[in-house]
């Protein structure tokens, strides 16, 4: 083949030879240590989780050979564990709402606030405030609004006793109520990220566009947005991550039950507590890892393709 007849590639070898022994040591340390660390705190637990997902280990003593159950946990999860599919639906819903509503809204806010409005610091901090609050606190604040009997929302809507809406308790509604809270935080987060990105866009580009007679909207989509590609990717990645790791909010509200099932909450409710179903919980975690892997692979393929270009 053509490549085999090509001249040997001396550059690489010579490059290595140019390094002193000290350089090599430093390089090994710089690459090796982080790699070891990542291996120890990320990949070892991941592999252990996957291994445990094939057992019925209950967290007591060391896993024994008799704990091995093969794929039983996965069969149970998909056929015999009703909360699972609800959780999958909820995580997907979370992703869709973030992707279609919360993230674009955050970007819009950033664009608007980038225009040096009077008092823009106020809007900025108001929008960013929810991000600073712990989710436990956010859950509580919204409880005051959503509470069926005493909450603000039912009062404002003027609903009386039997007509009152049980925002946190009704399994058909509560996921939407929670998504409002989650979006409330997510918008501020995205806004801040995007605002930082917008600051780095060369103003000359925008000026040039407006000189050419492009409208504001056109300028944004045709000039600003494409130059922001790296930030856009970060925003996208964060949106996906935030949707997949949804957990704390629903955990605070009702422990991730009754309409608020998400994979993260199911994992913890199975693993934590008195009689820990570590094997079963690990199987759920493995599924979450697999789902994450799909997104990671898509992301990596994109990155590599761009690098080639």
């Amino acid at each position: 083949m053509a490549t085999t007849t090509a001249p040997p590639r001396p550059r690489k070898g010579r490059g290595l030879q140019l390094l002193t022994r000290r350089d090599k040591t430093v390089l090994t340390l710089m690459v090796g240590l982080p790699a070891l660390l990542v291996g120890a705190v990320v990949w070892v637990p991941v592999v252990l989780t996957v291994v445990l997902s094939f057992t019925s280990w209950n967290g007591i003593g060391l896993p024994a050979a008799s704990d091995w159950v093969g794929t039983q946990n996965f069969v149970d999860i998909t056929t015999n564990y009703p909360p699972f599919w609800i959780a999958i639906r909820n995580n997907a819903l979370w992703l869709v709402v973030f992707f279609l509503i919360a993230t674009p809204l955050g970007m819009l806010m950033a664009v608007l606030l980038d225009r040096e409005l009077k008092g823009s610091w106020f809007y900025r901090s108001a929008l960013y405030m929810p991000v600073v609050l712990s989710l436990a606190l956010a859950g509580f604040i919204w409880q005051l609004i959503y509470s069926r009997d005493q909450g603000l929302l039912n009062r404002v809507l003027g609903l009386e006793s039997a007509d009152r809406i049980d925002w946190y308790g009704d399994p058909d509604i509560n996921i939407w109520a929670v998504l409002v809270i989650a979006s409330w935080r997510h918008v501020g987060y995205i806004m801040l990220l995007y605002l930082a990105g917008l600051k780095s866009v060369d103003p000359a580009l925008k000026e040039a566009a407006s000189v050419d007679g492009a409208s504001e909207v056109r300028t944004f989509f045709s000039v600003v947005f494409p130059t922001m590609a790296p930030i856009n990717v970060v925003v996208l990645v964060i949106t996906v991550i935030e949707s997949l790791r949804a957990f704390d909010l629903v955990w605070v509200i009702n422990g991730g039950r009754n309409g608020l099932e998400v994979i993260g909450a199911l994992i913890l409710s199975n693993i934590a507590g008195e009689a820990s179903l570590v094997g079963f919980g690990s199987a759920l975690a493995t599924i979450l890892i697999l789902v994450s892997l799909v997104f990671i692979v898509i992301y990596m393929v994109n990155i590599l393709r761009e690098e080639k270009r």
Partner: protein
Amino acid sequence: MPTRPRSTDKLYLPSSGLRTPVARRSVLHGAMGAGAVGALAACGGDDAATDSASGGSAGAGATSLGSNKGDEVPRAAEDAMLAAFTEATGIEVEANVQDNETFQENINSYLQGTPQDTFTWFAGFRARFFDDQGFIGDITDVWDEIGDGFTDGFREASANGDKQILVPLYNYPWAMFYRKSLFEENGYEIPEDREAFVALCEQMQGDGLNPIALGDADGWPAMGTFDILNMRLNGYDFHIDLMAGDIDWDTAEVRRVFEEWATLLPFHQPDPVGRTWQDAAASLLQRESGMYLLGMFVGEQFPEGEDRDDLDFFNFPELDSSIGSGAIDAPIDGYMMTANPENEEAAKELLAFIGSAEAGDIYIATNPTNIAAHNDADTSAYSELQLKAAELIGNAENIAQFLDRDTRPDFASTVVIPTLQTFLQNPDDIDRVVSDLQAGKERLFTGEA
């Protein structure tokens, strides 16, 4: 994890009493610190501690306790009890006190690590489960000493087969709580059977009340309703076998429980799943609800004085005359010994002391939300409600521990709670409820003897 908030124990404390435990506690902390030092110095020889040890019992030394009594009142009560023990025997007790929920959630890793010699826990299946894992010490010989002080019910709830594993300290009943004044004003009668019960509910509805309060946001309160309906319709033995996984959940009997529940559900507060039990208790306090099926800790939500004195209860009426109303839920809290205590002799002495009438009296004096477990407990200081609770427990034919103590903990938390909540949302789909429960039972009870 949903665990019963036992901050409950703040109840029934006379206002002057509030100051005493605090003061006593700080004193005790001092004493405890000294105790720790004493324990270290114990090898050198007995110091001041032995002075107070009347009779100088054989096991002098030190032992330790892991406790979930982190809330103020139970903690003060336990401190007082331990101080009395140290005074009587000269044995110091080093207590590691954690808050209740943390202790329970970490019980697995706690028992696998280096636990204290003794620890607080609950009777029933929930105790046996950990004995089966080999974490629990055999205290049958302690029971030889203290056994006469307890009824057979307590003995059974504290045993795993022939092995005694727990020393009970107190319990509290689940019953229908109500306001005396509300019943008097409206001329309500305590119902004895299903007919009277339904009639009372309808009468209350007619009076613009919501008959039965219910708040199941935490998941466990509805277990109380299931327990009582199952025990009234199918009897105690069936209930316990069901809890143990010996009976299937998709049987006609269990279905009947949910059918009965579905017919009674319109008498309950609407939308219970979004409501906390505290909010449900508030509706009883505010005379919006007529009755409330809960443990005696409901009184915590009633301000001291007039309101609390107005609180009363009746035993849940019979639903089937062939079954009667002799079974109740009355969870027992107690103390256990770990499998490898450092000082087994001292640990057993401590447990023997906890199993005495005196220990119960001291505990209840500071924390009167409960009923002492011992037969010879001093009831002269009991409030009216306590006396009535003691009578209800004393006359009960069978005592269950509560669903999450009578069955596998994983089954209770990951299957029963979500399914009961689904049922409360959608009471018409009983097929789905029983099949979900059965599926969970098959998944979790496999491979067990």
